[in-house]
């Protein structure tokens, strides 16, 4: 292959790899949040079903506790959509900007995944609490809600970083 063609392929890759990296970040955020929430709500759902088997009146209460680890999937989606918006408005972003957006999506990707699992465990414990003391829903919700703080902080920094990086001139 002659040199000019090789270098123009190289140039093409360099020109468009930014979008690929940004899309990778987008995918990671949605993936990890989604997987975490799927696992989390699944685990909590098993405990919730067992609780309802013992006392059907608990349904409404344990359902709330089951869906708590579901928010991470939504947060992942939010990050993904913000990233998508950045990609579509900057279709020829530089490779550096793309890498930046990928890095910006990482706090969301990892924290969402792990916080969903840990929150599910707190939810399961709270469902067991509801089994024994059905009128303690107010307190039972708080334990899993504490875990969610870190998902929210991760969502926050990812959002701010994506919007911040997409405005940079690199």
């Amino acid at each position: 292959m002659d040199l000019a063609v090789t270098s123009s392929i190289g140039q093409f890759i360099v020109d468009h790899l930014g979008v690929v990296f940004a899309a990778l970040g987008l995918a990671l955020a949605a993936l990890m949040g989604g997987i975490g929430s799927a696992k989390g709500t699944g685990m909590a759902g098993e405990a919730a079903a067992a609780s309802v088997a013992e006392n059907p009146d608990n349904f409404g209460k344990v359902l709330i506790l089951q869906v708590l680890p579901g928010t991470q999937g939504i947060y992942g989606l939010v990050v993904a959509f913000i990233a998508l918006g950045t990609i579509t408005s900057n279709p020829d972003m530089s490779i550096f900007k793309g890498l930046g957006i990928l890095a910006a999506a990482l706090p969301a990707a990892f924290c969402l995944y792990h916080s969903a699992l840990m929150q599910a465990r707190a939810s399961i414990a709270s469902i067991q609490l509801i089994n024994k003391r059905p009128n303690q829903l107010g307190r039972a919700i708080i334990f899993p809600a504490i875990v969610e703080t870190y998902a929210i902080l991760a969502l926050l920094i990812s959002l701010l970083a994506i919007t911040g990086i997409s405005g940079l001139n690199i």
Partner: protein
Amino acid sequence: MIADMSRFRLVGLASQRKAILETLQRTGSVEVSPAAGDASLYTPLATSDTCALLEKIIKASEDASEVLDRVAPDKSAKAGMFAGRAVVSANDFDSFYQRSNLVYRTALDIISDDKAIAAAQNEISKLEARRLALAPWLSLPVPLNFAGTENTRVFVGSFEGQRSREQIMEAAAAAAPELSLYDMEIVAARKEQTCVLAVVHRDEARAFEQALTSVGFIKPAAETQLNPQAEDANLVRQIETHKKNEAAAAARIGEASKKRADILFLADHCRMRLAKYEAMRNVAQGEYTVLLEGWVEKSKARKLADKLEKSYDCVIELTEPEDGDDVPIKLVNNKFAGAIESVLTGFGLPQRGEADPLNVMALFYYALFGLMFSDAGYGIILTGACFYILKKYKNLEDGMKNSMRMFMGCGIATTFWGFVFGSFFGNVVGRVSDIFGSGTVALKPLWYDPVAEPMRLLMFSFVIGIAHLSAAYIMKAVSYVRAGKAKEILFDVIFPLFTFYALLGMLVGTSMFATMAGSAIPVPAWLNTICMGVAAACAIGIILFGGRESRSWVKRILKGAYALYNVVAGWLGDVLSYARLLALGLATGVIATVMNDLAGMGGKGFAGAVMFVLIFIIGQTLNFAINVLGAYVHTNRLMYVEFFGKFYEGGGRAFAPLTIKTKNYKMVVEE
């Protein structure tokens, strides 16, 4: 606010004991506590037998009504969470007393009829099983256990699987070649078994039986001398009888189901009497008089005492609670604050002397919820739904009524913030205009668009957080004043509050803040100097007094330094926690917008419009459900952890007056 309580002491005639308690129960404003009468004059009343009997009746009525729901369900009854209980008057209650015995008997009959049905069904299935086992033998003209004639022995039995007469004869011959005086006949040959009648001469009977057994001959279990056909007819007759019994019992239950209301009422009637007898345990009984003690709301005490003294021969003494008394807590609030009482009781009631935080809490509760839900469309739906339920169902239970009021308040706040930040079902106005119209119409935010300027909303969230936390410190100051510890305010409220304010004042002038927030707030040099001075003074104050309970100065200073670290780190963590206002608010708007984008993919035509409406409704409903839960949970969290953590002790005992506690009917007492 927390209602003032008075101690209530009543001395009355023993003969009027029950009547007095009934009046107290219907007024529902006195909590009966154990009476501390002179032990030589008064003894506690023994009511456990009556209580046990009442509990038995309650159990029977509940069981009976469960049977009715199962066997003869009431199709006209429409269950609904908003319907509330049917209302009865005190007269209905009194007149029911004479009938209660009869109703109790009906309830017991229903239970025994239900048991009879179960027993009959059990018998029928047993008899059916016997008929099934008998079926292959029906053509046998002799009983199953027919032994034979004078010179013969008869063996009736079966072999596994389907066999022919020749096969069995061959097998028998192979097993016992010396025998010859026998014959056999197939009664029925089926896939699972072959039924056989074998006749043998009595001399060879024993050897023949052994030979048969060795080739797999099984004798059936015979319980009767009748031949199979007669036995089958007999079984059918028995089944008929049981079926008749079952139908009769079911008919009796069906008839009794007309008294469903009475049975439900009986349970409530006994529940009320049970509450009365349980309260009676706390009454001290003398020879001619009784002593009753308890707690009553101060504002209602005088009127109640006058009423009782007029109706009965009794004397009532109302006194102020003393230190060390276990005074129950009752909250009295207006509709605005009272609506969120369940959020407070979920954490714990305030202790006596503590400030009731509900009013301050309500203001922030609605604001924070609104910021997190933050969509005008959702807010209007939430407000409208709660308003409709409140108007439509006049008979709502109190708890449900308060929840509806709370969510209506939350809905109004959500609508407000939604318009402020320009979100109405996400961007539906602009989206519809883009697809189906000119694309020029869009809902403009009254303030700014948070998706475009997230940092600005983050700063605003922090401002709201700082206001919320400051309110918590002010509540702490109020608590100190009420507890007579005004001096502590300087150490525990002023110092931490102003350390933070001063540090904040220094921070907003820096270039770091300007890059983060996107705009600088100019702080004049003199103000900066003042801030530095205040921060230093407060920090020194905290170091000196943060560990003031320690005697040793070394320990005290170390504890003080740790307290300072806690104040600064605590403020930082607490304020950052309000970032959730931005995160959840943005999540609502972004997902709603995404749903609209999906909905609009069908394009402009008729099919596109249908698709738009469908996806819009499904998507927005989903987003609404997820985010209303998120907003509720995180508003509670901000209240419990950040707000209450600063000042609220909790742990008060709820006021539990002797009152009408029923499950199925709501009793209304005419004044």
